[in-house]
Protein backbone atom coordinates (compact mmCIF):
# COMPACT_ATOMS: atom_id res chain seq x y z
CA UNK A 1 0.00 0.00 0.00
CA UNK A 2 1.35 3.43 -0.88
CA UNK A 3 2.16 5.97 1.82
CA UNK A 4 -0.74 8.27 1.01
CA UNK A 5 -3.20 5.36 1.03
CA UNK A 6 -1.89 4.31 4.44
CA UNK A 7 -2.30 7.82 5.76
CA UNK A 8 -5.78 7.97 4.28
CA UNK A 9 -6.76 4.70 5.89
CA UNK A 10 -5.29 5.76 9.22
CA UNK A 11 -7.18 9.02 9.04
CA UNK A 12 -10.51 7.28 8.38
CA UNK A 13 -10.03 4.70 11.12
CA UNK A 14 -8.84 7.29 13.63
CA UNK A 15 -11.84 9.50 12.91
CA UNK A 16 -14.20 6.63 13.61
CA UNK A 17 -12.53 5.86 16.90
CA UNK A 18 -12.52 9.51 17.91
CA UNK A 19 -16.28 9.77 17.28
CA UNK A 20 -16.92 6.64 19.32
CA UNK A 21 -14.62 7.86 22.08
CA UNK A 22 -16.47 11.18 22.29
CA UNK A 23 -19.72 9.37 23.12
CA UNK A 24 -18.00 7.25 25.76
CA UNK A 25 -16.29 10.28 27.29
CA UNK A 26 -19.53 12.29 27.41
CA UNK A 27 -21.46 9.46 29.02
CA UNK A 28 -18.64 8.94 31.52
CA UNK A 29 -18.52 12.64 32.30
CA UNK A 30 -22.28 12.74 32.90
CA UNK A 31 -22.28 9.65 35.12
CA UNK A 32 -19.30 10.77 37.21
CA UNK A 33 -20.54 14.30 37.70
CA UNK A 34 -24.11 13.34 38.50
CA UNK A 35 -22.96 10.77 41.07
CA UNK A 36 -23.11 13.28 43.96
CA UNK A 37 -26.73 14.06 43.20
CA UNK A 38 -27.66 10.39 42.83
CA UNK A 39 -25.97 9.53 46.14
CA UNK A 40 -27.24 12.47 48.15
CA UNK A 41 -30.70 12.99 46.74
CA UNK A 42 -31.49 9.50 45.45
CA UNK A 43 -35.14 9.05 44.59
CA UNK A 44 -35.83 12.65 45.58
CA UNK A 45 -34.47 13.53 42.16
CA UNK A 46 -37.75 12.26 40.76
CA UNK A 47 -40.00 14.61 42.71
CA UNK A 48 -41.33 17.85 41.30
CA UNK A 49 -39.78 20.38 43.69
CA UNK A 50 -36.71 22.17 42.37
CA UNK A 51 -35.41 24.67 44.90
CA UNK A 52 -31.62 25.12 45.01
CA UNK A 53 -31.47 27.28 48.19
CA UNK A 54 -33.30 24.48 50.03
CA UNK A 55 -31.17 21.82 48.32
CA UNK A 56 -34.21 20.28 46.66
CA UNK A 57 -33.52 18.98 43.19
CA UNK A 58 -36.58 17.23 41.79
CA UNK A 59 -36.47 17.04 37.99
CA UNK A 60 -39.95 15.66 37.33
CA UNK A 61 -41.39 18.95 36.05
CA UNK A 62 -38.58 19.20 33.50
CA UNK A 63 -38.94 15.57 32.40
CA UNK A 64 -42.67 16.16 31.97
CA UNK A 65 -42.03 19.31 29.93
CA UNK A 66 -39.55 17.55 27.64
CA UNK A 67 -41.89 14.62 27.02
CA UNK A 68 -44.91 16.80 26.28
CA UNK A 69 -43.03 19.20 24.01
CA UNK A 70 -41.55 16.25 22.11
CA UNK A 71 -44.90 14.53 21.68
CA UNK A 72 -46.56 17.73 20.44
CA UNK A 73 -43.86 18.61 17.97
CA UNK A 74 -43.49 15.10 16.54
CA UNK A 75 -47.25 14.61 16.35
CA UNK A 76 -47.34 17.70 14.15
CA UNK A 77 -44.10 17.34 12.25
CA UNK A 78 -44.17 13.64 11.34
CA UNK A 79 -47.48 13.51 9.42
CA UNK A 80 -46.84 16.87 7.76
CA UNK A 81 -43.31 15.86 6.92
CA UNK A 82 -44.36 12.56 5.45
CA UNK A 83 -47.00 14.16 3.26
CA UNK A 84 -44.55 16.79 2.05
CA UNK A 85 -41.83 14.23 1.38
CA UNK A 86 -44.25 12.12 -0.67
CA UNK A 87 -45.12 15.22 -2.65
CA UNK A 88 -41.55 16.33 -3.33
CA UNK A 89 -40.25 12.85 -4.08
CA UNK A 90 -43.15 11.24 -5.95
CA UNK A 91 -45.21 14.03 -7.46
CA UNK A 92 -43.02 17.05 -8.04
CA UNK A 93 -41.22 17.19 -11.42
CA UNK A 94 -37.52 16.52 -10.98
CA UNK A 95 -36.32 20.01 -11.86
CA UNK A 96 -38.49 21.67 -9.18
CA UNK A 97 -37.51 19.03 -6.65
CA UNK A 98 -33.95 20.33 -6.50
CA UNK A 99 -35.07 23.90 -5.83
CA UNK A 100 -37.46 22.81 -3.11
CA UNK A 101 -34.81 20.64 -1.54
CA UNK A 102 -32.18 23.35 -1.45
CA UNK A 103 -34.66 25.74 0.11
CA UNK A 104 -35.52 23.15 2.75
CA UNK A 105 -31.87 22.54 3.51
CA UNK A 106 -31.39 26.27 3.85
CA UNK A 107 -34.22 26.33 6.40
CA UNK A 108 -32.63 23.47 8.31
CA UNK A 109 -29.47 25.52 8.64
CA UNK A 110 -31.01 28.58 10.29
CA UNK A 111 -29.56 28.98 13.80
CA UNK A 112 -32.02 28.11 16.54
CA UNK A 113 -31.72 31.49 18.23
CA UNK A 114 -33.36 33.01 15.14
CA UNK A 115 -36.28 30.59 15.47
CA UNK A 116 -36.42 31.51 19.16
CA UNK A 117 -36.67 35.22 18.47
CA UNK A 118 -39.33 34.68 15.81
CA UNK A 119 -41.09 32.49 18.38
CA UNK A 120 -41.14 35.29 20.96
CA UNK A 121 -42.22 38.02 18.60
CA UNK A 122 -44.80 36.18 16.49
CA UNK A 123 -45.64 32.64 17.53
CA UNK A 124 -46.14 33.36 21.22
CA UNK A 125 -48.39 36.34 20.53
CA UNK A 126 -50.42 34.25 18.06
CA UNK A 127 -50.87 31.50 20.62
CA UNK A 128 -51.81 34.10 23.20
CA UNK A 129 -54.53 35.58 21.02
CA UNK A 130 -55.76 32.30 19.54
CA UNK A 131 -56.45 30.74 22.93
CA UNK A 132 -57.10 34.02 24.77
CA UNK A 133 -54.31 33.34 27.25
CA UNK A 134 -52.56 35.47 29.83
CA UNK A 135 -49.23 34.73 28.25
CA UNK A 136 -48.28 33.07 24.97
CA UNK A 137 -45.20 31.48 26.49
CA UNK A 138 -46.54 27.97 26.87
CA UNK A 139 -45.62 24.33 26.44
CA UNK A 140 -47.72 24.32 23.26
CA UNK A 141 -45.72 27.25 21.85
CA UNK A 142 -42.54 25.30 22.49
CA UNK A 143 -43.95 22.24 20.76
CA UNK A 144 -45.16 24.25 17.75
CA UNK A 145 -41.85 26.03 17.36
CA UNK A 146 -39.94 22.76 17.53
CA UNK A 147 -42.26 21.23 14.94
CA UNK A 148 -41.43 24.10 12.58
CA UNK A 149 -37.73 23.76 13.31
CA UNK A 150 -37.56 20.03 12.78
CA UNK A 151 -39.75 19.86 9.66
CA UNK A 152 -37.09 20.84 7.10
CA UNK A 153 -34.68 18.19 8.40
CA UNK A 154 -37.32 15.48 8.41
CA UNK A 155 -38.70 16.39 4.99
CA UNK A 156 -35.38 16.50 3.24
CA UNK A 157 -34.24 13.20 4.78
CA UNK A 158 -37.54 11.49 4.02
CA UNK A 159 -37.50 12.83 0.51
CA UNK A 160 -34.10 11.18 0.06
CA UNK A 161 -35.39 7.99 1.62
CA UNK A 162 -38.33 7.75 -0.79
CA UNK A 163 -36.34 8.91 -3.78
CA UNK A 164 -33.73 6.20 -3.16
CA UNK A 165 -36.26 3.44 -3.76
CA UNK A 166 -35.28 2.18 -7.23
CA UNK A 167 -37.59 2.83 -10.16
CA UNK A 168 -38.05 -0.83 -10.93
CA UNK A 169 -40.19 -1.39 -7.83
CA UNK A 170 -42.50 1.43 -8.79
CA UNK A 171 -42.72 0.15 -12.34
CA UNK A 172 -43.44 -3.38 -11.20
CA UNK A 173 -46.13 -2.14 -8.85
CA UNK A 174 -47.70 -0.08 -11.62
CA UNK A 175 -47.40 -3.01 -13.94
CA UNK A 176 -49.54 -4.98 -11.51
CA UNK A 177 -52.23 -2.39 -12.04
CA UNK A 178 -51.89 -0.40 -8.81
CA UNK A 179 -53.00 3.21 -8.66
CA UNK A 180 -50.41 5.85 -7.92
CA UNK A 181 -51.37 6.17 -4.28
CA UNK A 182 -51.25 2.40 -3.92
CA UNK A 183 -47.77 2.34 -5.40
CA UNK A 184 -46.63 4.81 -2.77
CA UNK A 185 -48.51 3.21 0.11
CA UNK A 186 -47.81 -0.44 -0.64
CA UNK A 187 -44.47 -0.39 -2.43
CA UNK A 188 -42.41 2.75 -1.88
CA UNK A 189 -43.13 3.43 1.79
CA UNK A 190 -42.62 -0.14 3.07
CA UNK A 191 -39.38 -0.41 1.10
CA UNK A 192 -38.05 2.87 2.47
CA UNK A 193 -39.07 2.03 6.01
CA UNK A 194 -35.59 1.69 7.48
CA UNK A 195 -34.49 5.10 6.22
CA UNK A 196 -37.77 6.66 7.27
CA UNK A 197 -37.28 5.42 10.84
CA UNK A 198 -33.70 6.68 10.86
CA UNK A 199 -34.78 10.16 9.80
CA UNK A 200 -37.55 10.24 12.39
CA UNK A 201 -35.00 9.36 15.06
CA UNK A 202 -32.76 12.21 13.98
CA UNK A 203 -35.75 14.52 14.24
CA UNK A 204 -36.51 13.19 17.69
CA UNK A 205 -32.94 13.83 18.78
CA UNK A 206 -33.12 17.39 17.51
CA UNK A 207 -36.41 18.04 19.32
CA UNK A 208 -35.22 16.59 22.64
CA UNK A 209 -31.91 18.37 22.46
CA UNK A 210 -32.98 21.81 21.24
CA UNK A 211 -32.26 24.39 23.91
CA UNK A 212 -32.14 28.02 22.88
CA UNK A 213 -35.39 28.36 20.96
CA UNK A 214 -37.42 26.41 23.51
CA UNK A 215 -35.89 28.33 26.39
CA UNK A 216 -37.09 31.62 24.95
CA UNK A 217 -40.72 30.64 24.38
CA UNK A 218 -41.66 28.14 27.05
CA UNK A 219 -41.95 30.41 30.09
CA UNK A 220 -39.39 28.53 32.17
CA UNK A 221 -41.41 27.72 35.23
CA UNK A 222 -40.75 24.38 36.94
CA UNK A 223 -44.36 23.34 37.36
CA UNK A 224 -46.49 20.42 36.28
CA UNK A 225 -49.97 21.79 35.55
CA UNK A 226 -52.98 20.51 37.49
CA UNK A 227 -54.10 18.52 34.48
CA UNK A 228 -51.19 16.88 32.70
CA UNK A 229 -52.93 17.36 29.37
CA UNK A 230 -53.12 21.12 29.78
CA UNK A 231 -50.47 22.39 27.39
CA UNK A 232 -51.62 26.01 27.43
CA UNK A 233 -49.55 26.87 30.51
CA UNK A 234 -45.89 27.80 30.86
CA UNK A 235 -43.51 24.96 31.58
CA UNK A 236 -39.90 23.91 31.46
CA UNK A 237 -37.94 21.31 29.53
CA UNK A 238 -34.73 19.65 30.67
CA UNK A 239 -32.77 21.55 28.05
CA UNK A 240 -34.29 24.94 28.84
CA UNK A 241 -33.54 24.38 32.52
CA UNK A 242 -29.95 23.47 31.71
CA UNK A 243 -29.63 26.47 29.43
CA UNK A 244 -30.89 28.87 32.05
CA UNK A 245 -29.16 27.57 35.14
CA UNK A 246 -25.98 25.68 34.35
CA UNK A 247 -23.76 28.76 34.15
CA UNK A 248 -24.63 29.96 37.62
CA UNK A 249 -23.91 26.69 39.40
CA UNK A 250 -20.45 26.12 40.87
CA UNK A 251 -18.72 23.05 39.44
CA UNK A 252 -18.70 20.38 42.13
CA UNK A 253 -21.77 21.61 44.02
CA UNK A 254 -24.87 19.46 44.50
CA UNK A 255 -26.76 21.93 42.32
CA UNK A 256 -24.28 21.37 39.46
CA UNK A 257 -24.47 17.64 39.95
CA UNK A 258 -28.26 17.69 39.76
CA UNK A 259 -28.09 19.70 36.54
CA UNK A 260 -25.70 17.13 35.07
CA UNK A 261 -28.03 14.36 36.20
CA UNK A 262 -30.70 15.99 34.07
CA UNK A 263 -28.30 15.85 31.13
CA UNK A 264 -27.77 12.16 31.81
CA UNK A 265 -31.51 11.50 31.83
CA UNK A 266 -31.78 13.34 28.52
CA UNK A 267 -29.06 11.16 27.02
CA UNK A 268 -30.74 8.01 28.35
CA UNK A 269 -34.01 9.16 26.76
CA UNK A 270 -32.44 9.48 23.33
CA UNK A 271 -30.46 6.26 23.70
CA UNK A 272 -33.39 4.14 24.84
CA UNK A 273 -35.72 5.49 22.17
CA UNK A 274 -33.08 4.78 19.55
CA UNK A 275 -32.57 1.26 20.81
CA UNK A 276 -36.31 0.58 20.91
CA UNK A 277 -36.78 1.92 17.41
CA UNK A 278 -33.88 -0.08 16.04
CA UNK A 279 -35.00 -3.30 17.70
CA UNK A 280 -38.58 -3.12 16.57
CA UNK A 281 -38.40 -1.43 13.22
CA UNK A 282 -34.95 -1.99 11.81
CA UNK A 283 -34.41 -5.14 9.84
CA UNK A 284 -31.36 -5.08 7.59
CA UNK A 285 -32.50 -8.18 5.68
CA UNK A 286 -35.56 -6.35 4.56
CA UNK A 287 -33.41 -3.91 2.61
CA UNK A 288 -33.62 -4.75 -1.04
CA UNK A 289 -31.34 -2.03 -2.37
CA UNK A 290 -28.45 0.13 -1.31
Amino acid at each position, binding site marked *: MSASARIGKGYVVASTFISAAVIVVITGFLVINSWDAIRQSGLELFTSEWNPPKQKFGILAMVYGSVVVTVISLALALPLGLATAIFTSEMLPARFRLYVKSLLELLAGIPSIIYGLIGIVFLSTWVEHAFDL*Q*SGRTVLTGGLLLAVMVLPTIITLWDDALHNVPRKYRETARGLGLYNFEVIRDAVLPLARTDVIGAALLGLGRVLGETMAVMLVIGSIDKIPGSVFNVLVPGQTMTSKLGREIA*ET*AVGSLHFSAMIFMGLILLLFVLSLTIVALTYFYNPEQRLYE
Partner: protein
Amino acid sequence: MPLWIRVFSALLFVSLQFGCSRTDSIQIAGSTTVLPVVSRAAEQFRMKHPNLNVIVNAGGSGVGINQLGEGKVDIGMASRDITDVEIQKHPGVEFVTYTIGRDAVVAVVSSEVFDAGVQALSFQQIGQIYQGKITNWRELGGPVKDILVVDKERSRGTRHVFMKLVLGNKEADAPGADLVLGSNNEEQTAISQSDAAIGMLSHAWLNAEVKGLAIVLDDGAVVEPTLTSIVDGTFPISRDLFLLTNSEPSGMTRSFLDFIMSPEGQKIVEESGYVRIR
Protein backbone atom coordinates in the same frame (compact mmCIF):
# COMPACT_ATOMS: atom_id res chain seq x y z
CA MET B 1 4.77 12.36 3.86
CA PRO B 2 3.28 14.46 1.04
CA LEU B 3 4.18 18.11 1.07
CA TRP B 4 0.65 19.36 1.69
CA ILE B 5 0.33 17.41 4.90
CA ARG B 6 3.60 18.87 6.13
CA VAL B 7 2.50 22.39 5.27
CA PHE B 8 -0.90 21.77 6.82
CA SER B 9 0.51 20.48 10.10
CA ALA B 10 3.00 23.31 10.25
CA LEU B 11 0.16 25.80 9.81
CA LEU B 12 -1.89 24.01 12.42
CA PHE B 13 1.00 24.09 14.83
CA VAL B 14 1.60 27.80 14.29
CA SER B 15 -2.06 28.66 14.65
CA LEU B 16 -2.26 26.66 17.89
CA GLN B 17 0.68 28.65 19.21
CA PHE B 18 -1.15 31.85 18.42
CA GLY B 19 -4.33 30.57 19.99
CA CYS B 20 -2.58 29.68 23.22
CA SER B 21 -0.37 32.70 23.62
CA ARG B 22 -2.29 35.11 25.80
CA THR B 23 -2.74 38.38 23.99
CA ASP B 24 -3.92 41.28 26.08
CA SER B 25 -7.57 40.78 26.84
CA ILE B 26 -9.99 41.40 29.66
CA GLN B 27 -12.83 38.91 30.10
CA ILE B 28 -15.94 40.25 31.83
CA ALA B 29 -19.28 38.56 32.56
CA GLY B 30 -22.30 38.83 34.82
CA SER B 31 -25.22 41.08 35.67
CA THR B 32 -27.31 42.39 32.78
CA THR B 33 -28.00 45.45 34.92
CA VAL B 34 -24.33 46.44 34.97
CA LEU B 35 -23.79 45.27 31.39
CA PRO B 36 -24.83 48.46 29.55
CA VAL B 37 -22.34 50.52 31.55
CA VAL B 38 -19.48 48.10 31.12
CA SER B 39 -20.01 47.46 27.42
CA ARG B 40 -20.08 51.17 26.66
CA ALA B 41 -17.04 51.73 28.85
CA ALA B 42 -15.29 48.84 27.10
CA GLU B 43 -15.96 50.44 23.73
CA GLN B 44 -14.40 53.76 24.77
CA PHE B 45 -11.55 52.05 26.60
CA ARG B 46 -10.62 50.14 23.47
CA MET B 47 -10.32 53.34 21.48
CA LYS B 48 -7.56 54.31 23.84
CA HIS B 49 -5.95 50.87 23.81
CA PRO B 50 -6.41 49.50 20.30
CA ASN B 51 -4.42 46.33 20.98
CA LEU B 52 -6.58 45.31 23.88
CA ASN B 53 -9.55 42.98 23.63
CA VAL B 54 -12.35 43.54 26.11
CA ILE B 55 -14.88 40.71 25.96
CA VAL B 56 -18.14 41.40 27.79
CA ASN B 57 -20.75 38.67 28.34
CA ALA B 58 -24.12 38.66 30.10
CA GLY B 59 -25.49 35.90 32.35
CA GLY B 60 -26.64 37.59 35.54
CA SER B 61 -24.97 38.35 38.85
CA GLY B 62 -24.83 34.68 39.84
CA VAL B 63 -22.97 33.85 36.65
CA GLY B 64 -20.60 36.80 37.11
CA ILE B 65 -19.63 35.77 40.64
CA ASN B 66 -19.40 32.10 39.74
CA GLN B 67 -17.24 32.60 36.67
CA LEU B 68 -14.92 34.93 38.55
CA GLY B 69 -14.65 32.30 41.27
CA GLU B 70 -13.72 29.67 38.70
CA GLY B 71 -11.16 31.93 37.06
CA LYS B 72 -13.04 32.09 33.76
CA VAL B 73 -13.25 35.89 33.78
CA ASP B 74 -11.06 38.72 35.05
CA ILE B 75 -13.93 40.92 36.18
CA GLY B 76 -17.37 39.84 37.38
CA MET B 77 -20.36 42.17 37.18
CA ALA B 78 -22.91 42.02 40.00
CA SER B 79 -25.92 44.02 41.04
CA ARG B 80 -26.19 42.42 44.48
CA ASP B 81 -23.96 41.41 47.37
CA ILE B 82 -22.10 38.12 47.25
CA THR B 83 -23.89 35.51 49.36
CA ASP B 84 -22.14 33.50 52.07
CA VAL B 85 -22.76 30.35 50.07
CA GLU B 86 -20.95 31.84 47.10
CA ILE B 87 -17.98 32.83 49.25
CA GLN B 88 -17.80 29.30 50.65
CA LYS B 89 -18.03 27.79 47.17
CA HIS B 90 -14.80 29.50 46.13
CA PRO B 91 -12.47 29.27 49.13
CA GLY B 92 -9.33 30.17 47.18
CA VAL B 93 -10.76 33.41 45.83
CA GLU B 94 -10.37 36.77 47.46
CA PHE B 95 -13.30 38.83 46.14
CA VAL B 96 -12.52 42.53 45.84
CA THR B 97 -15.54 44.74 45.26
CA TYR B 98 -15.71 48.07 43.40
CA THR B 99 -18.90 50.09 43.64
CA ILE B 100 -19.33 51.85 40.30
CA GLY B 101 -22.82 53.31 40.58
CA ARG B 102 -26.25 53.10 42.12
CA ASP B 103 -29.50 51.78 40.72
CA ALA B 104 -33.06 51.23 41.85
CA VAL B 105 -35.06 48.06 41.39
CA VAL B 106 -38.54 49.03 40.35
CA ALA B 107 -41.74 47.03 40.41
CA VAL B 108 -43.01 47.46 36.87
CA VAL B 109 -46.36 46.84 35.20
CA SER B 110 -47.64 46.82 31.64
CA SER B 111 -48.63 50.30 30.54
CA GLU B 112 -52.29 49.18 30.19
CA VAL B 113 -52.43 48.43 33.91
CA PHE B 114 -50.64 51.67 34.79
CA ASP B 115 -53.00 53.74 32.66
CA ALA B 116 -56.02 52.02 34.20
CA GLY B 117 -55.01 53.43 37.56
CA VAL B 118 -52.63 51.06 39.31
CA GLN B 119 -49.71 53.43 39.84
CA ALA B 120 -48.59 52.83 43.41
CA LEU B 121 -48.50 49.69 45.56
CA SER B 122 -47.14 48.80 48.98
CA PHE B 123 -44.54 46.08 49.57
CA GLN B 124 -47.26 43.96 51.19
CA GLN B 125 -49.46 44.16 48.12
CA ILE B 126 -46.60 43.30 45.77
CA GLY B 127 -45.62 40.46 48.11
CA GLN B 128 -49.14 39.06 48.03
CA ILE B 129 -49.10 39.11 44.24
CA TYR B 130 -45.89 37.07 44.18
CA GLN B 131 -47.28 34.68 46.79
CA GLY B 132 -50.36 34.12 44.68
CA LYS B 133 -52.76 35.66 47.21
CA ILE B 134 -53.79 38.51 44.92
CA THR B 135 -54.46 37.22 41.41
CA ASN B 136 -56.58 39.87 39.71
CA TRP B 137 -55.86 43.55 39.10
CA ARG B 138 -59.45 44.33 40.18
CA GLU B 139 -58.41 43.66 43.79
CA LEU B 140 -55.94 46.55 43.50
CA GLY B 141 -58.26 48.97 41.80
CA GLY B 142 -57.19 48.08 38.29
CA PRO B 143 -58.89 46.43 35.32
CA VAL B 144 -60.64 43.08 35.61
CA LYS B 145 -57.73 41.00 34.38
CA ASP B 146 -55.74 38.15 35.82
CA ILE B 147 -52.27 39.27 36.83
CA LEU B 148 -49.42 37.83 34.80
CA VAL B 149 -46.75 37.50 37.47
CA VAL B 150 -43.26 37.59 35.95
CA ASP B 151 -40.52 36.23 38.19
CA LYS B 152 -36.78 36.06 37.62
CA GLU B 153 -34.21 33.31 37.80
CA ARG B 154 -33.16 32.79 41.40
CA SER B 155 -29.57 33.94 41.21
CA ARG B 156 -30.35 37.24 39.48
CA GLY B 157 -29.25 40.34 41.38
CA THR B 158 -32.46 42.23 40.64
CA ARG B 159 -34.48 39.42 42.20
CA HIS B 160 -32.33 39.26 45.34
CA VAL B 161 -32.71 42.97 46.04
CA PHE B 162 -36.42 43.00 45.19
CA MET B 163 -37.42 39.88 47.14
CA LYS B 164 -35.45 40.96 50.23
CA LEU B 165 -37.72 43.99 50.58
CA VAL B 166 -40.94 42.58 49.24
CA LEU B 167 -41.00 39.16 50.89
CA GLY B 168 -38.24 39.60 53.47
CA ASN B 169 -35.94 36.94 52.04
CA LYS B 170 -33.69 37.36 49.02
CA GLU B 171 -34.26 33.77 47.92
CA ALA B 172 -37.97 33.67 48.76
CA ASP B 173 -40.23 31.32 46.82
CA ALA B 174 -42.82 32.92 44.59
CA PRO B 175 -45.67 30.42 44.27
CA GLY B 176 -47.75 32.99 42.41
CA ALA B 177 -45.27 33.30 39.53
CA ASP B 178 -46.47 32.53 36.00
CA LEU B 179 -43.22 32.99 34.08
CA VAL B 180 -39.59 32.82 35.13
CA LEU B 181 -37.32 34.88 32.90
CA GLY B 182 -33.71 35.95 32.98
CA SER B 183 -32.21 39.16 31.74
CA ASN B 184 -33.67 42.65 32.06
CA ASN B 185 -34.08 42.59 28.32
CA GLU B 186 -36.16 39.41 28.29
CA GLU B 187 -38.33 40.58 31.17
CA GLN B 188 -38.91 43.95 29.53
CA THR B 189 -40.08 42.23 26.33
CA ALA B 190 -42.51 39.95 28.16
CA ILE B 191 -44.05 42.77 30.16
CA SER B 192 -44.47 45.05 27.18
CA GLN B 193 -46.05 42.21 25.17
CA SER B 194 -48.63 41.62 27.89
CA ASP B 195 -51.41 43.93 29.02
CA ALA B 196 -51.62 42.61 32.58
CA ALA B 197 -48.10 41.84 33.73
CA ILE B 198 -46.10 42.76 36.81
CA GLY B 199 -42.37 42.27 37.09
CA MET B 200 -39.16 43.69 38.49
CA LEU B 201 -36.65 45.69 36.51
CA SER B 202 -33.67 47.87 36.94
CA HIS B 203 -34.58 51.57 36.79
CA ALA B 204 -32.65 52.01 33.55
CA TRP B 205 -34.99 49.65 31.69
CA LEU B 206 -38.29 51.49 32.10
CA ASN B 207 -39.95 52.72 28.90
CA ALA B 208 -43.30 53.75 27.49
CA GLU B 209 -44.65 50.19 27.53
CA VAL B 210 -43.15 49.22 30.88
CA LYS B 211 -44.06 51.61 33.66
CA GLY B 212 -42.51 51.83 37.11
CA LEU B 213 -44.83 51.71 40.12
CA ALA B 214 -44.45 54.16 42.98
CA ILE B 215 -44.03 52.53 46.37
CA VAL B 216 -46.47 53.24 49.21
CA LEU B 217 -44.40 53.25 52.41
CA ASP B 218 -45.67 52.10 55.81
CA ASP B 219 -46.28 55.71 56.89
CA GLY B 220 -48.44 56.33 53.85
CA ALA B 221 -45.86 58.35 51.90
CA VAL B 222 -45.69 57.57 48.19
CA VAL B 223 -42.26 57.54 46.53
CA GLU B 224 -41.97 57.57 42.78
CA PRO B 225 -39.04 55.90 41.03
CA THR B 226 -37.22 58.97 39.73
CA LEU B 227 -33.53 59.72 39.51
CA THR B 228 -33.98 62.34 42.25
CA SER B 229 -35.54 59.91 44.70
CA ILE B 230 -32.83 57.37 43.96
CA VAL B 231 -30.05 59.93 44.44
CA ASP B 232 -31.38 61.24 47.75
CA GLY B 233 -32.07 57.71 48.93
CA THR B 234 -35.81 58.06 49.52
CA PHE B 235 -36.72 55.40 46.96
CA PRO B 236 -36.70 52.28 49.10
CA ILE B 237 -35.28 49.65 46.71
CA SER B 238 -31.92 50.96 45.67
CA ARG B 239 -28.71 49.06 45.38
CA ASP B 240 -25.08 49.42 44.46
CA LEU B 241 -23.70 48.14 41.19
CA PHE B 242 -20.45 46.25 41.55
CA LEU B 243 -17.48 45.08 39.60
CA LEU B 244 -15.57 42.25 41.26
CA THR B 245 -12.05 40.98 40.87
CA ASN B 246 -10.08 38.14 42.42
CA SER B 247 -7.58 39.94 44.73
CA GLU B 248 -6.17 43.38 43.89
CA PRO B 249 -6.12 43.71 40.10
CA SER B 250 -3.07 44.78 38.14
CA GLY B 251 -2.18 45.72 34.57
CA MET B 252 -4.97 46.34 32.10
CA THR B 253 -7.71 45.14 34.44
CA ARG B 254 -6.60 47.79 36.91
CA SER B 255 -6.59 50.52 34.25
CA PHE B 256 -10.06 49.49 33.07
CA LEU B 257 -11.46 49.76 36.60
CA ASP B 258 -9.73 53.11 37.04
CA PHE B 259 -11.33 54.24 33.78
CA ILE B 260 -14.84 53.40 35.02
CA MET B 261 -14.19 55.28 38.26
CA SER B 262 -12.83 58.31 36.36
CA PRO B 263 -15.12 61.26 35.53
CA GLU B 264 -15.34 59.94 31.97
CA GLY B 265 -16.41 56.48 33.15
CA GLN B 266 -18.87 57.88 35.66
CA LYS B 267 -20.43 59.88 32.86
CA ILE B 268 -21.16 56.56 31.13
CA VAL B 269 -22.82 55.32 34.33
CA GLU B 270 -25.07 58.36 34.27
CA GLU B 271 -25.83 58.04 30.56
CA SER B 272 -26.89 54.44 31.10
CA GLY B 273 -29.64 55.58 33.44
CA TYR B 274 -27.94 54.96 36.78
CA VAL B 275 -26.65 57.23 39.52
CA ARG B 276 -22.96 58.12 39.53
CA ILE B 277 -21.16 57.75 42.82
CA ARG B 278 -18.35 60.21 42.18
